[in-house]
């Protein structure tokens, strides 16, 4: 046989072959289940083409493994080779040396495995219990690989973004997602709000749950801005999802100034504030421990619904006298005075009234019961944590109470349980830090998980500020770039492959990239978050005007309010 008759045996393998398998990257050369495997890159693959977080497939002899690149390293066949430098200016020598004498090694954390024989059958990938053998081939994942792991976009699967360097859809199982509390983390300016908006749009659009959004910074309801060099305004949930979203406000004036038409203005009465609410505000109102004792005594004396109005209305001496008469407890007059000063700061909140006229909780529940999500804008209270803690806590507690009643009734009498509710809180560490997590309703919700069909979506830039107990209950975590060690540590607590994921997390782009791991995704994955802000994206995320609430809402409403 002459040379011309056969294929050139020295032709490098075709790297751009489209179609079936992805590009060959290299072969497995070592590793462990605990730490992940090392893949020596083939001479056709450059380390510079491989980013941490890339999605890789390892083809063993019987199993196909899915994993993520967690580290990239430079190696040499012999350490001296790196110190006695060859003439790499010459392209030929550079070509020969790279991938042989000196080569790249990527570290891959396999998460899922699929038996090869039934790859087109019904078997779905399962968590790995072993690693691929030596010299198993590593390839770039293809669209089909991504689809086989994350599923196709369906009624329950919501497309959140695509893997790095690949046009494929990574989907989150919304049904699983809303069963537990979830978290969106990332330092400021990394796209948390953007990701939250997309996720909420998905949850609402696909009716996975109704959402109650405490929109502290007025970004989700009507209109938000996209961050970046050419920041522009993007449509909020109300504009995209229309009747599926109701807009409530705490500050009518601010909403009017921003030309946002709202559905309801929330007012909170003094009678609705309990000593527990004040305990959460202790720090922001600077109330001492003794002051808190006084609050308890006052509440004992005047009742939970009257004590605040009385405290603000009566003089210190009078209060002291009345408490002493009723409960035989002598509160120091100075304590009462200090307390009165602290509590009087509540008066400056325009949304507070002596006695609430409307029933904000009732109204919110009505909307939620109809399958309409509620976004509560905070208007000018965007930077006032006392207002935020107070309002979010009061409303959530009442709503949670109703959901508990409802669920228990459903369990006892066999009715329909309420549709899942997702409560969205930003700057969550204010509500869930280890000092207050045990006292706020949010701590309770996070711990209860799906028991009463109410879960949290916490959005925070300082996850280390959130209590460990709450973090351990967070089912799915969507993390944008985090670079504070404490925050990274706290986000990764209790996650397999923590040290590998830490590298991935630290190297995310500062914009629109997120690492997702936890309950609602089969394996950790880094995504480019899908687009939001174009006409096309609005159309994809919106709902047609004719779409009605799902049928069970009618039943739900009956359950809640009677006929």
């Amino acid at each position: 046989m002459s040379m011309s008759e056969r294929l050139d045996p020295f032709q490098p393998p075709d790297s751009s072959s489209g179609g079936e398998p992805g590009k060959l990257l290299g072969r497995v050369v070592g590793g462990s289940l605990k730490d992940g495997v090392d893949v020596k890159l083939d001479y056709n693959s450059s380390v510079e083409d491989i980013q941490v977080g890339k999605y890789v497939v390892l083809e063993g002899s019987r199993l196909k493994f899915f994993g993520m690149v967690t580290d990239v390293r430079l190696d040499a066949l012999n350490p001296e080779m790196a110190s006695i430098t060859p003439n790499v200016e010459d392209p030929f020598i550079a070509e020969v040396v790279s991938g042989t004498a000196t080569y790249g090694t990527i570290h891959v954390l396999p998460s899922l495995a699929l038996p090869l024989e039934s790859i087109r059958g019904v078997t779905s990938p399962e968590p790995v219990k072993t690693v691929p053998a030596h010299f198993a081939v590593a390839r770039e994942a293809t669209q089909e690989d991504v689809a086989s792991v994350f599923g196709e976009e369906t009624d329950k699967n919501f497309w959140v973004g695509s893997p790095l360097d690949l046009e494929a859809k990574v989907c989150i199982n919304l049904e699983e997602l809303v069963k537990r509390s979830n978290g969106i983390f990332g330092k400021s300016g990394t796209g948390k709000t953007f990701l939250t908006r997309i996720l909420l749009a998905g949850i609402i659009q696909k009716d996975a749950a109704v959402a109650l959004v405490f929109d502290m910074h007025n970004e989700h309801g009507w209109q938000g801005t996209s961050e970046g060099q050419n920041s522009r305004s993007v449509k909020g949930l109300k504009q995209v999802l229309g009747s599926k979203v109701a807009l409530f406000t705490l500050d009518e004036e601010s909403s009017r100034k921003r030309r946002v038409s709202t559905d309801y203005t929330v007012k909170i009465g003094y009678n609705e504030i309990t000593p527990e609410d004040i305990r959460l505000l202790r720090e922001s109102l600077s109330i001492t421990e003794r002051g808190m004792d006084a609050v308890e005594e006052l509440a004992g004396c005047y009742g939970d619904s009257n004590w605040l109005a009385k405290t603000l209305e009566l003089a210190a001496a009078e209060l002291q006298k009345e408490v002493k008469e009723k409960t035989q407890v002598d509160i120091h007059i100075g304590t009462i005075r200090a307390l009165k000063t602290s509590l009087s700061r509540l008066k400056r909140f325009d949304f507070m009234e002596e006695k609430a006229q409307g029933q904000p909780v009732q109204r919110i529940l009505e909307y939620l019961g109809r399958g309409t999500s509620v976004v509560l804008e905070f208007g000018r209270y965007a930077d006032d944590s006392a207002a935020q803690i107070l309002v979010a806590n009061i409303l959530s507690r009442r709503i949670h109470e109703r959901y508990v009643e409802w669920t228990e009734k459903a369990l006892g009498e066999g009715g329909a349980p309420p549709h899942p509710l997702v409560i969205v809180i930003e700057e969550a560490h204010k509500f869930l830090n280890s000092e207050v997590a045990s006292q706020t309703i949010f701590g309770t919700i996070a711990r209860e998980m799906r028991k009463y069909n109410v879960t949290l979506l916490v959005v925070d830039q300082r996850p280390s500020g959130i209590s460990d107990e709450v973090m351990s209950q967070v089912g799915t975590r969507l993390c944008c770039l985090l670079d504070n060690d404490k925050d990274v540590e706290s986000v990764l607590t209790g996650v397999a492959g923590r040290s590998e994921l830490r590298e991935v997390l630290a190297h995310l782009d500062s914009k629109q990239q997120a690492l997702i791991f936890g309950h609602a995704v089969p394996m950790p994955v880094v995504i480019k978050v899908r687009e939001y802000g174009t006409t096309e994206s609005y159309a994809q995320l919106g709902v047609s005007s004719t779409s009605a609430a799902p049928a069970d809402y009618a039943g739900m409403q009956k359950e809640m309010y009677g006929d």
Partner: protein
Amino acid sequence: MNDSLSSRAGDAEAEVIQATTISFTAHCYELNGAPPLGSLVKAVSGSTEVIAAVSLAQTSSVDSGRKPVALGDGRQTFEEIIHRNPHLSQLFTTEFQAVVVGYKERDEYVRRLPPAPSPVHSPVYRCADREIADFTSSLSFLDLIYAASLPPLREEMLAAFIRMAGQARGGDRNFLAEAGRQAVVLMRKEPAQLWRLLEMIRA
């Protein structure tokens, strides 16, 4: 080199005078007529061809007891000296050693050591370009050259062989790169020598 090599491929150039499993020594029919370093030769006996790469050539006195002396006075060229002393070709011999890299049996190339060395007096031919190209379509034998050649000569020998094969294959850059990669693995413990080799074979 190519042209002369092909045109003379028909005639034997030397004869095996000493053989081991890993190498043989051949006596050239022509004084100073050894094939170039690294070139591929075959020692033919019956239907078997033992393929070897030239690793060392040497011209010396036929009688090891007689020491050659200078013949010119500084003004003659080499050709003039030879012309005036035609008997020299009877007093000196040129021999070369070749490292065995494989053999051909029943029209198939086998790239490992033959079961037996070439018989003494087997004629030795240079391989033609087509034969070189066929034999080097796999480079699994390169370590035989590496193992049988000694350090100062090693990278020179390997480089000469790779260059020769590359030329026979029409300067195939992919071949040279692949051979370079194999050399990297073989010479991983001697980086300085390896880089020298790569300089020598660079396309």
